[in-house]
């Protein structure tokens, strides 16, 4: 088979699309620093998406993958353009998708101490973040900021734009040290560059999953009245600060010693719950009713806002029900940029539904949460995915369509009641159904096999790895000549 690089078309519109991975045992603690960097990218008009993945490679080492691009993003993609290593030890770089031309920033030890762990052709910049962060402080976050400063310089980000006054709590001294080091000592040899989009685009808001949940649960309880959407357009950041502050007083956070690490957010009405990082069985114990709740699965930050708003609309029609939105582990610590006009659209739908819910026929779960279908009307392969795997499938379908392969995909949001009728209808329009699982439990494949009349194939990630669009593309044999 010819190398894939020989097939792919040249991008002709000066788009940029860079995948940056941060590797380190304590990367999960760098929330403020990564948000500081992501906000700088969002302010430049770039779409940003970040995910914290499970420990991989060296035991206990976490990887935070951040993708920035001039076009909308659905997943963190495959491979790695830039790897920022914050480890003291020499890690095994083979599992991070580094290729010829990728960039590695790390505080490399003396070359005599290791046997060339960096793959051939990877452009390595030595940034001595340990030494540069010794004074003052010298903490882990300081080392990360030194590395971020060097990274910003290498990617061509305007330092003044990054050092925005909103960087509260960020030690800019270390960031500036990194920038200055890169300016004086690093000669740029790579071709990665984060340029703002040439076309004028809508402004973006950077939201963490927790912020999205709070917004979705407490949106209609703000003090803005009819002026809310106008305020969003005129002073976006202030609008966000005000609404999150209001939501902090209205949304309950439930935590239990029996379920460590799991967070359940409960809205003001008490019947809409968002479960971050746990199994849907926990919802039953949190709900105030004995019946089974309607369970939805979010595919990302924006989708969580959509589901929460629609879930509250469902409750207005059926006040005795309970709606739970499950947010998978990999999404619980994620960040995404949302276009301001998309957020306004979601919120305006909520306002409309508030006014019209009494007069309209009560909507059902299937009415409010229809599965979305994408791709050819009659396809050889039909993918089905729930949750975070949907973003990966969207990009895999796009990739297949670029090569003229007849594929389709179904994106259900509802997990309970199971959307059997929609799956049956979809299966009749494709030759083979393949369920793309987000983890190795194969829960959805088993449910489909139990409830539907067809037997699906399954794509699941390798142990310790997250699924990427290229995995789906290659594993199904579609790329073979």
């Amino acid at each position: 088979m010819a190398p894939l690089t020989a097939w792919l078309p040249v991008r002709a519109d000066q788009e940029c699309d860079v995948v940056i991975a941060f590797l380190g045992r304590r990367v999960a603690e760098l929330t403020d620093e990564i948000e500081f960097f992501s906000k700088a990218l969002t302010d430049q008009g770039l779409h940003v998406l970040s995910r914290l993945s499970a420990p991989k490679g060296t035991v206990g080492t976490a990887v935070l993958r951040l993708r920035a691009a001039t076009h909308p993003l659905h997943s963190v993609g495959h491979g790695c353009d830039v790897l920022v290593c914050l480890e003291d030890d020499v890690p095994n770089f083979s599992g991070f998708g580094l290729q010829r031309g990728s960039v590695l920033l790390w505080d490399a030890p003396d070359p005599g101490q290791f046997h060339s762990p960096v793959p051939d052709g990877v452009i390595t910049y030595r940034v001595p973040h340990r030494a540069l962060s010794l004074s003052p402080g010298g903490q882990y976050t300081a080392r990360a900021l030194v590395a971020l400063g060097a990274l910003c310089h290498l990617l061509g980000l305007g330092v003044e734009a990054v050092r925005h006054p909103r960087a509260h709590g960020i030690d800019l001294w270390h960031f500036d040290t990194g920038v200055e080091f890169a300016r004086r000592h690093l000669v740029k040899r790579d071709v990665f560059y984060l340029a703002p989009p040439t076309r004028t685009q809508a402004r973006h808001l950077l939201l963490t999953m927790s912020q999205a949940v709070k917004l979705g649960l407490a949106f209609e309880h703000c003090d803005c009245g009819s002026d809310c959407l106008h305020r969003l357009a005129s002073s976006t950041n202030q609008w966000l600060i005000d609404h999150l502050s209001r939501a902090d007083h209205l949304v309950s956070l439930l935590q239990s010693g029996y379920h460590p690490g799991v967070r359940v957010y409960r809205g003001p009405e008490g019947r809409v719950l968002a479960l971050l990082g746990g199994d849907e069985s926990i919802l039953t114990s949190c709900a105030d009713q004995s019946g089974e709740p309607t369970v939805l699965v979010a595919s990302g930050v924006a989708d969580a806002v959509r589901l929460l708003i629609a879930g509250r609309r469902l409750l207005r029609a059926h006040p005795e029900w309970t709606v739970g939105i499950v947010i998978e582990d990999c999404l619980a610590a994620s960040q995404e940029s949302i276009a301001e006009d998309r957020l306004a659209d979601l919120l305006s739908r909520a306002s409309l539904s508030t006014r019209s819910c009494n007069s309209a026929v009560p909507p059902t779960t299937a009415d409010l949460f229809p599965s979305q279908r994408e791709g050819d009307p009659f396809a050889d392969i039909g993918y089905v995915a729930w949750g975070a795997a949907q973003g990966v499938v969207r990009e895999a379908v796009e990739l297949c369509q670029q090569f003229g392969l007849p594929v389709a995909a179904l994106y259900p949001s509802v997990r309970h009641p199971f959307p059997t009728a929609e799956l049956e209808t979809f299966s009749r329009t494709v030759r083979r159904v393949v369920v793309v699982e987000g983890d190795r439990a194969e829960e959805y494949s088993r449910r489909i096999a139990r409830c539907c009349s067809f037997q699906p194939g399954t794509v699941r990630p390798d142990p310790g790895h997250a699924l990427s669009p290229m995995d789906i593309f290659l594993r199904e044999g579609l790329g073979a000549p």
Partner: protein
Amino acid sequence: MQQPLDGLAACPRWTPTAPEQRRLGTVSTAKRMEMLVIQLPRGRSAVVQFDPARSTTVTDHCGFRALLEYGILDWNGHRCFPADGHRFFSALYDHLFLSGYRVRWLTWTPAARPRTW
């Protein structure tokens, strides 16, 4: 230094489409074009094209902006810029090759120009 390859036969899969040629300005009356095709990570590629008749260098990849802005050192240690024409183009090939990229240098002559659609 690698010698330029003659014609697109060296890279038969790469056939620029008509919109791509218009964007790059290759539908001009130039008699000869030279281009670098660079393989990037994650299955992407970039093209830098040099028009000897006009002595201009164009690219479809925004990552080359920094190189074009700050210039590149050639074998003699002199910094060259796009205005230096072929000297810059040659130095760019060396720079990319030595940095670790897979680069192909193609020469596009009228006789070898592929049919476009």
